[in-house]
Every structure is written in structure tokens, then in C-alpha cells.
């Protein structure tokens, strides 16, 4: 084979490789489209086959054809708000501590621990919830059962912490050193600088962190299914926090295994999936837009 032939041979091979690479690049779009397509294909018929009075009714009794989405939506909302109330202050506080205050050794202890938490499978969290947390909370609060929205919220709060800590910490670290120095030069203490300069400068990143954390909580499935008691009732008042609830994710996970393909129940579960998909889409797109805006602004500053 002479060299020019070898070269043209290689060229064809290389062309093929580049086509494959390009195709792989488009895969994300293809997969998202496929996910949309199949959720719609299986779930949209629910809107026509299940009476709206049932979908918007007050009860979730699949056996009697009662498919009210409201209790599940509220269940998810209750747990999510509870988890956010725990995860946001702890997560942001820890991020600020790691990035601004902690001595080196403390950083080196904290960061791997947070990473370990991020790596914990959700089923392990659920297991701990059942065996340790819920009996503890039941005794502590004198409840009839430990499997409540509150238990779920505590657990999911911790599940969301790693996301919040790592994204917020990145945002804080990205704040230029000179901002802080300028503040010190004006006579501010480190503490004043953190809250008056550093955190406000990183606010869009911190906002992104909170949104992604909330996204993580809404989508969390196994842990929440294992500890929230799975009662699809409309929660009311503050006491609802300490009663069993049923979230959207848990409903899908718990019931999909037992339904006939194509039945009303099956379609409604996919419909819930569509709702979850829309929620995550909204949250992630917003977070993406926020963090992208920040990126653009930084680029302008640097150029």
C-alpha cells in the first residue's frame, strides 16, 4: 500500500469516527425527546380516559377509579418545603463555613464527608429512616407513628445538602479575592465581609444551588417512599407535617409494579411522571438560565 492510499484509507475511517462523535453529541437531545415522547404516549391518554372529576377530585383510591392528583401534589409539596427548610440553612451555612471560615484541616474533613453523603444511595437513607430516624422521632415527638411527612423531610433535607453545599461552595469560591480585600481595606471584619460582599456577589450561584437542591428533593423516590407512611390524604394545617403522606414519586414507585399495562391506573401513573418531568424541566432550566447569566457577566468582566 503506498502512502497516499494509506492516507485516504485513514481519512475514510476518520470521517466515520467524526460522524459517530457528532451523533453522540446529539444523543442528549435525542434522549430527552424520547423521554418526552414515551411519557406522553403512555400518560397523555389518561386525560381522555379518566374523568376529570376523578383527576381533580379529593381522593386517591385507584381500586375505585378515584385518581385525584391533588393529595399527591400536596404530599410532595409538604415534604419538599420541609426538606428545603432544613437543607437550605444547613447547606448554605456549611458552604459558607467551608469556603470562608474553616481552617484547612476542617475543610479536608468536611468535604469528603459531604461527598460521601452525596454518594449514599437513596435506599440506604430510607433504610436508616425506617430503622433509626422514625422510631427516634416518634418517641421524641410522642406521635402515633414515626412514618410521617416530617421524617421524610428530615431525610430528604440531608439528601439535598450535598447538592446545595457543592454548588454554593463553587459559587463562593468564584468570587474574586479582590472583592474581599477591598472590603477588608475599608475596615470591615471577615464576618461583615462574608454577608455584605461575598455572599451577595455569589447570590446567583447560591440561588442555583437552592433550586438544584429542591429539584433533587422533588425527584427523590426510594427514601421518601420508605418513610412517609404512604397515606394519600390531603394534608391540612401544620399537623399534616407530622402525619403520613404520599408523594408523587412514591406513588409511581409503589404502584407501577402492580398495574396492568395500558390500564387507567397505569396511564395516570405516567401522567404523574409527566408532571414530575415538567417540574424538573422548569427548575433545571431556571437554574441553568441563572447560572448562565452569571457566567456571561463574569466573562464580560474579565475581557
Amino acid at each position, binding site marked *: 500500500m503506498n502512502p497516499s492510499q494509506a492516507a485516504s484509507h485513514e481519512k475514510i475511517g*476518520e470521517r466515520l*469516527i*467524526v460522524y459517530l*462523535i457528532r451523533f*453522540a*453529541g446529539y*444523543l*442528549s*437531545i435525542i434522549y*430527552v425527546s424520547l*423521554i418526552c415522547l414515551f*411519557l406522553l*404516549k403512555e400518560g397523555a391518554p389518561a386525560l381522555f380516559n379518566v374523568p376529570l372529576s376523578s383527576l381533580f377530585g379529593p381522593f386517591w383510591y385507584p381500586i375505585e377509579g378515584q385518581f385525584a392528583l391533588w393529595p399527591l401534589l400536596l404530599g410532595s409539596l409538604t415534604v419538599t418545603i420541609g426538606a428545603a427548610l432544613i437543607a437550605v*440553612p444547613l447547606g448554605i*451555612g*456549611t458552604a*459558607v*463555613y*467551608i469556603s470562608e*471560615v*474553616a481552617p484547612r484541616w476542617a475543610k479536608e*474533613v*468536611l468535604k469528603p*464527608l*459531604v461527598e*460521601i453523603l452525596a*454518594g*449514599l*444511595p*437513596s*435506599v*440506604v437513607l430510607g*433504610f*436508616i429512616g425506617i430503622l*433509626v430516624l422514625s422510631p427516634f422521632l416518634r418517641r421524641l415527638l410522642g406521635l402515633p407513628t414515626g412514618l410521617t411527612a416530617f421524617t421524610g423531610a428530615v431525610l430528604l433535607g440531608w439528601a439535598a445538602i450535598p447538592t446545595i*453545599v457543592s454548588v454554593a461552595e463553587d459559587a463562593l469560591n468564584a468570587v474574586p479575592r479582590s472583592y474581599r480585600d477591598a472590603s477588608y481595606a475599608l*475596615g470591615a*471584619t471577615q*464576618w*461583615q465581609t462574608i454577608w455584605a460582599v461575598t455572599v451577595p456577589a455569589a447570590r446567583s450561584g447560591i440561588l442555583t444551588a437552592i433550586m*438544584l437542591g429542591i429539584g433533587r428533593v*422533588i*425527584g427523590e*423516590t*426510594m427514601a421518601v417512599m*420508605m418513610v412517609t407512611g404512604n397515606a394519600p390524604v390531603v394534608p391540612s394545617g401544620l399537623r399534616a407535617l407530622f402525619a403520613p403522606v404520599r408523594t408523587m*414519586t412514591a406513588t*409511581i*414507585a409503589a404502584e*407501577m*409494579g402492580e398495574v396492568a399495562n395500558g390500564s387507567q391506573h397505569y396511564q395516570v401513573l*405516567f401522567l404523574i*411522571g409527566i408532571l*414530575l*418531568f415538567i417540574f*424538573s*424541566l422548569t427548575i*433545571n*432550566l431556571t437554574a*441553568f438560565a441563572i447560572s448562565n447569566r452569571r457566567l456571561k457577566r463574569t466573562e464580560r468582566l474579565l475581557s
Partner: protein
Amino acid sequence: MNKQANQKLPFLTARRMQTLGFGALTLVSVVTVLPIIALGVFIVVQGMPAINWEFITDFPQNGMRAGGILPAILGTIYLTIGTAIFSIPPGVAAAIYLAEYAPDNQLTRAIRVAMVNLAGIPSVVYGLFGLGLFVIFLRFGTSILAASLTLSIMTLPVIISTTEEALRSVPHDFRVVSISLGATRWQTVWRIVLPQSLAGIITGVILGLERAAGETAPILFTGAAFFLPRLPQSPLDPTMALPYHLFVISTQVPGMPVQIQYGTVLVLLVFVLGMNLIATVIRSRMRARRQW
């Protein structure tokens, strides 16, 4: 230091505020991580007595209340390998496209938006999708194949974004020099960029697979089995898996000995966190071997 503040606020001076504030932040961090440490110790203490040779090499017996968890361990290994097969090649290729080829245009932005979405979709929704596409539409049935494919799509964004980061960390000048010597883009990627970012890519891939190995929701309706008397014979068989098995024995089986539950948790954690540890070691080694 702050004289003015000293005069106005005799008690809550800026310095005292700072001491209090730092104390509060330290407390918050301790509250955040203490449960993790406590849990780790607790699980190891409770789970260690259950771990012995039989536990990891035997089938479950007596309705899973005795014996070992071999099928679950093997199942998780099968699923992880399957996920690796379906997620690493396209994930790395997609990252190469984004880092080395993609022009700065609307389509590339659309890819990034799609990736962000893919990363945020709840795991149970992946389960639904896998059920709809792989199990029913493509007729793979509940099987290792369907579950691996589902997990691989979920893992893809992690692999793409970590790989892209690793590729981008290779200095741009190497590419310019290589191209200036008459190399094509692909030759540049293959001979210079990929070897230099390999460690970073491996780290990212392991972190992605680690997540997949611990997932339960995506495999619930696509490939996980409650109990199987024998090991899966082909990729089209369903399989037991550690995370699902843990779910089963902690919620679905009455009278389950606690020791077996903790033992299962410990094995699952060793599996998952062990992968994490390997990734960390590779990452720290890579910095030492860098050639720039």
C-alpha cells in the same frame, strides 16, 4: 480595629459578632456532618457481625431471612457492567464532540440545555421511560438489558460533563501545536488530548457508575426481581440487585433479622463508596503524572 463600632456598640462589637457568627457557622457544619459520621460508625458496627464468607457467597434462604445475598451482589455487578457498556462509549464520544468539535451555535446550546434536563429528571421517571421504551415498546421485558439501558441514559449526563471537563483541562496550546504540524483534529484528540485526560475521564466514569449502582427507582419496573432462585442466565433475564434487595428486606419481608439488613447495607456501601474511593485515588494520582 473598628473604633466607631466600638463607641456605638459597647457589647456587640464587630469582633464579638464575628466570634459569635463563626461559632454559629461551625455549629451548622457540625450538625450537617455529624449524622453522617454517626451513621457510618453505626452501620459498620451493626453490619460487621453479619459479614462472613457465606453471606456474600450464598443464596438467600428461608424467605430471605437467612443465608447470603450472592444473587443481589452479582446482579448489581451485572447491571453496573451493562450500564458501563451503554454509557461510556456514547458519553465519552459526546464529550469529545462538545469539547473539541461543537461550534458555538444554537444547536450546541440546545445540547447543553438537554443535558441539564437529563441530569435533573427524577430517577423514577427514568424508570417509567425505561418501562415504556425498553420493556414494552422494544419488548426486552423486565431484564438486565432494559435496566442497564435505563441506568445508562441516567448516567450519561454525569459522564459527559465530567469527561468534557477533563478534556478541557488539557491546555489549548497542545492542540494548536499538533494542528500546526499537519495533524487532523481527530489525530490531535486521539494522540494528545485523550491520553492526557484519561485519568479525569476514568474518575468521571466511575462516579457516574457509582450512582447507577446504588439506584433503585429506575430498575424497579425495568429489571429488578424480588427474589430469584437461580442466577440470571442471559441479559434478557431479570435480576436481583443490592439496592432493591435492601428495599425488599427492609419493607416487604416481615420478621426480617436486623443483622441481615445491616449486613446488606454494609455490602452496598462498600460497593458504592469503594468505587468512590478508587475514583479519588485516581484523581490524586493524575495530578502527579501531568506533563504540563
